[in-house]
């Protein structure tokens, strides 16, 4: 416990530049100097341990003079860039110089300048503004795991940079933008776009992956200008991945804004909502109930999935599923598809076994947590899957299910590590859902969990890492299809933002309705397009991979003539004659309460009660096909990221080969 932390608890905020509560202590900025009785010189409160009997004085003339002096030194070599610096208005240096600095400077020599470094298409560097606090260096080494940045030189010639011409390829590289107290590292896509006082912050949830990081969407009028992280100790602490931070410019491109019907010549024609819904209602009545199929996309919220399932059930069909859950999802036992050790609980584990999952690209915040545990407690990580680089030390145990069998039988050297572990943690990737031998793999993993005693009343270490934001809610709501290959024999397909459906499997004469917000792959086969709102424009419930339900908040208006997803389905149901009984958000949420009440308890993690012991024995044969990668390109995973220019630049220059 340092003096600075003790003062924080007491309610006194001490100014600082290099200290950050989640990084190691550096103590090189000296802004936190306070006076301690019986000490000959002022003391750096961020480093000095708080001893009993210390009398700490933060507002005496000595402390004030110290702060003014430090400020003066910092500003000596700092360029007069405030009007052109992006950090103006939210700059720690500006605020602290106003609050703690003196009113005039005494510097009359020439300032030094530093050459800018190229760190990639995401982080803009103006290294002249750097005050050498080394927060970015510590972040990159400790939390991101890449030792890209370092401090070169000494004295006033110190420069932060990558010694060689390297780009910051880490998926957490955007967080240095928040960490840097001055405008040295800023966001390149956001450069010169807006000042922070023009922006209205809306607290919402990220949907690019299943983690559900808490974000704040800063918008100016009808446009999203940037995305910043929001504190949530359980899920993402204070960080967000690069994809979450920079994909917002995809919200402005390729947007669907009018209902469109494909004419006989194959081209789309914009029509009104009345006509579009009338056409869909007509077609859906001409088709047999068993030929109706509904697919919910990766970014669908729980309300719209509830409406879709209700509507299709009313029409007589039960072929509704969500992308990414595989052909025969098991939605009965909740612990079989969520992360039972919550994301914050991963910090207590001491051995990890990653099966068929590359957390670095699938869920960057979960990876950050695993790295935190590995670093803090020297946890051991065993990885089964294709060769990948994780930013912590791991043992590559094998590539296919045979390795799992060996571990289960105890023949593999890693099994002893697992059995001797106090809190073993097994993470299975959701890519396993798509395999045919999914049940066999899960039963082998359960055997491993048994032998390692991973599932106990006080610790459940058997986890599934989901890929999409919509999967957990879909399984909670019961979107399980009747048959796995219903698409081949269908005549009416309702794609609700579903772009990963294999378009070749759709028969030629099927009528495809695409309801989504981006003109991505699904649109090319669609017969009717119904525009809906994206996650930043609607209030939707998303369940993250650990089972915590969270709601997004609308930040910007919907584009063009788009409507909310569930509203479209409700209107369609009325036009088709099978009117759904809810017509407001409260009403649809009370319907959700009857199906899955945990979706209504937002911001609270609902643990799964029953473990896999309820599952019947599976008699499947395990195949020898090695595990594949579920996420090929980290930067382009769903319709919004595929439409984003920044993500395209990133995947061209930064993707790990």
């Amino acid at each position: 416990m340092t003096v600075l932390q003790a003062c924080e608890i007491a309610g006194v905020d001490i100014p600082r530049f290099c200290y950050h509560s989640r990084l190691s202590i550096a103590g090189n900025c000296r802004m936190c100097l306070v006076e301690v009785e019986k000490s000959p010189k002022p003391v750096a409160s961020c480093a000095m341990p708080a001893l009993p009997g210390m009398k700490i004085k933060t507002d005496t003339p000595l402390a004030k003079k110290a702060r003014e002096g430090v400020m003066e030194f910092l500003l000596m070599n700092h360029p007069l860039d405030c009007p052109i610096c992006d950090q103006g208005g939210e700059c720690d240096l500006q605020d602290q110089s106003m609050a703690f600095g003196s009113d005039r400077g005494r510097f009359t020599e020439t300032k030094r300048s530093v050459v800018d470094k190229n760190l990639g298409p995401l982080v803009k560097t103006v290294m002249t503004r750097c005050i050498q606090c080394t927060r970015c260096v510590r972040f990159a080494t400790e939390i991101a795991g890449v030792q890209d940045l370092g401090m070169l030189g000494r004295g006033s010639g110190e420069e932060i940079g990558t010694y060689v011409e390297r780009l910051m390829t880490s998926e957490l590289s955007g967080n240095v933008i928040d960490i840097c107290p001055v405008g040295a590292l800023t966001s390149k896509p956001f450069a010169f776009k807006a000042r922070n006082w023009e922006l209205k912050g809306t607290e919402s949830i990220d949907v690019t992956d299943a983690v559900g990081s808490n974000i704040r969407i800063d918008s100016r009028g009808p446009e999203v200008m940037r995305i910043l992280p929001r504190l949530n100790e359980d899920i993402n602490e204070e960080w967000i991945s690069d994809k979450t931070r920079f994909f917002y410019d995809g919200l402005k491109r390729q947007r669907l804004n009018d209902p469109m019907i494909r004419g006989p010549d194959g081209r789309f024609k914009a029509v009104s909502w009345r006509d579009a819904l009338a056409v869909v209602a007509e077609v859906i009545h001409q088709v047999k109930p068993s030929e109706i199929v509904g697919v919910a996309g990766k970014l669908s919220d729980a309300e719209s999935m509830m409406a879709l399932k209700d509507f299709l059930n009313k029409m007589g069909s039960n072929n509704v599923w969500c992308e990414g859950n595989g052909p025969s999802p098991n939605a009965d036992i909740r612990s079989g598809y969520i992360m039972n050790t919550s994301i914050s609980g991963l910090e207590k584990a001491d051995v990890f076994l990653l099966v068929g999952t590359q957390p670095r690209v699938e869920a960057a915040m979960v990876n950050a947590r695993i790295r935190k545990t590995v670093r803090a407690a020297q946890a051991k990580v065993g990885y089964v899957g294709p060769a990948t680089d994780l930013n912590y030390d791991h043992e590559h145990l094998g590539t296919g299910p045979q390795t799992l069998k060996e571990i289960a039988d105890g023949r593999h050297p890693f099994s002893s590590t697992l059995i001797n572990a106090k809190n073993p943690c097994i993470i299975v990737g959701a890519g396993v859902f798509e395999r045919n031998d999914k049940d066999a793999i899960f039963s082998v993993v359960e055997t491993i969990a048994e032998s390692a005693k991973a599932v106990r009343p006080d610790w459940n270490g058997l986890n599934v890492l989901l890929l999409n934001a919509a999967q957990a809610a879909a399984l909670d709501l019961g979107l399980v299809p009747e048959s796995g290959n219903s698409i081949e024999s269908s005549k009416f397909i309702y794609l609700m933002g579903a772009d990963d459906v294999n378009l070749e499997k759709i028969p030629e004469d099927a009528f495809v309705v695409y309801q989504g917000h981006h003109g991505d792959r699904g649109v090319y086969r669609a017969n009717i397009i119904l525009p809906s709102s994206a996650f930043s424009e609607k209030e939707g419930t998303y369940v993250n991979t650990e089972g915590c339900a969270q709601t997004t908040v609308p930040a910007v208006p919907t584009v063009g003539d788009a409507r909310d997803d569930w509203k479209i389905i409700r209107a369609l149901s009325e036009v088709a004659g099978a009117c759904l009984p809810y017509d407001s958000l409260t009403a649809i949420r009370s319907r959700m309460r009857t199906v899955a009440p945990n979706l209504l308890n937002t911001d609270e993690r609902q643990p799964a009660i029953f473990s896999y012991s309820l599952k019947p024995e599976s008699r499947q044969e395990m195949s020898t096909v090695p595990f594949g990668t579920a996420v090929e390109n980290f930067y382009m995973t769903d319709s919004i990221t595929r439409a984003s220019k920044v993500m395209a630049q990133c995947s061209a220059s930064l993707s790990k080969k």
Partner: protein
Amino acid sequence: MASSLLRLARRSRQAYPSFLTPLSRPFASDALVETKPGEIGMVSGIPEEHLRRRVLIYSPARTASQQGSGKVGKWKINFVSTQKWENPLMGWTSTGDPYAHVGDSALCFDSEEAAIEFAQRHGWDYRVKKRHTPLLKPKAYADNFRWKGPPDTKN
């Protein structure tokens, strides 16, 4: 007509000899009286459709790009009013919603209960979002030099 009005006036004046105008009792003792949800909204002159709004109550998180927590701890009401569009004349943002800025600029509460009470009195359908506070992990400078376990013998 006039006589009936006079009769009414006389009767009301008889019933309340000490007629007090509202202005002379600025802080009424009925502050202790409980009001049912929605009653204040009913008499406040707010149009009907704005009394049926959905409203979110939240505590804004600290801005991630700065370390200062001076503004943290306040509670605000977010009137979900995103119906904005770009004005064709100048490109400025137009909105038809009178509540577009009220949440940010005017209403600020010290506690969650105050915000909830306000929303209840006006009859809005409110949802409360949980406030997240940072965990304080005790740190020490000596952690930089602590022994971190035996060296990795693999590489």
